[in-house]
């Protein structure tokens, strides 16, 4: 199946089941990408996984993203059907002040650590996650370091004043 055909089929299926849930569906560099409304993200993922026609049994990656205007957070899922070599990318965006979406752990157990990582760096709360705590950073950290509102540098340095760098 060509990527365009796959895109159309999935788009149609999702639109039949959940009208209005697909905000956008497009080929980006010949790669099918779906933007799904966050209220229907879990149901849409379940269809992609369980429908025999699609059978995306493998979650390649799950990560977070912050929109350029800094007002929205997103979660990106990369799905793979190995026997047929289908790949799709599923994105969902939501308000940064209410970063809550349902977990995908019940669909793919491999989502567990990836959701913990996304929580660690972006503060996305995955509802229903069995063990949502920091995974890579120290437990005492009180920021979500990859959000644009937090500075990259370690804030405890006292020897780095702006005048040393001509600022």
């Amino acid at each position, binding site marked *: 199946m060509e990527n365009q055909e796959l895109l159309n089929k999935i788009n149609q299926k999702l639109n039949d089941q959940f009208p209005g849930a697909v905000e956008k569906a497009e080929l980006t560099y010949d790669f099918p990408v779906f933007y799904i409304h966050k209220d229907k993200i879990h149901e849409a993922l379940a269809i992609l996984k369980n429908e025999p026609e699609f059978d995306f049994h493998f979650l390649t990656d799950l990560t977070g993203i912050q929109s350029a205007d800094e007002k929205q957070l997103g979660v990106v899922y990369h799905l793979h059907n190995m026997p047929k070599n289908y790949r799709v990318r599923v994105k969902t965006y939501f308000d940064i002040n209410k970063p809550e979406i349902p977990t995908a752990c019940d669909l793919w157990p491999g989502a567990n650590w990836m959701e913990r990582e996304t929580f660690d760096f972006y503060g996305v709360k995955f509802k229903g996650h069995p063990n949502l705590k920091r995974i*890579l*950073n*120290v437990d005492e*950290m009180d*920021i979500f*370091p990859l959000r644009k509102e*937090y500075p*990259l*540098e*370690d804030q*405890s*340095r006292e020897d*780095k004043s702006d005048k040393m760098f001509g600022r």
Partner: protein
Amino acid sequence: MGKQLQKRTKLDMAKLPEGLEGPGFFATKLEQVIGLARANSLWPLPFATSCCGIEFMATMASDYDLARFGSERLSFSPRQADMLMVMGTIAKKMGPTLRQVYEQMAEPKWVLSVGACASSGGIFDTYSVLQGIDRIIPVDVYVPGCPPRPEQIIEGILKIQELAKNESFRRRNSDEYKKLLNSYGME
């Protein structure tokens, strides 16, 4: 034509400490004899996390040969080590581990901080990296470089040897030393 091997016949011996010498006897301070013995048999505990660790491997290997300075015996147990060599970037999450390793070492103990990352965080001025190991454990000698050459690491070890040689017996019981440990929250 290969390089001609030179046979060294004259051996360098450790210099005698100050003392009273006569036929059949030599009298000096016990402190100095012990210091001499400690300085020339420092057992290093390598805590290597990145590229400085690779330079350390060269330092241990035949070309640079740390064994010449009595430190060929690496101790991978902190209980038997005299000198903690921290080489490489220490992430904040690694901090408690490094601290525990330091606390497990028996006195007297020395710490060598090798390279820019261990000494100050180096180029990694970022939220996840410890900005210098002296934030969690006391450091005796810093070796600059990114990474330092083996010659520099050897230089750092020679400096620690000087410290060990000249350290007073009572230093580890002194109030000053206790204060230093207390400032790091250790007993």
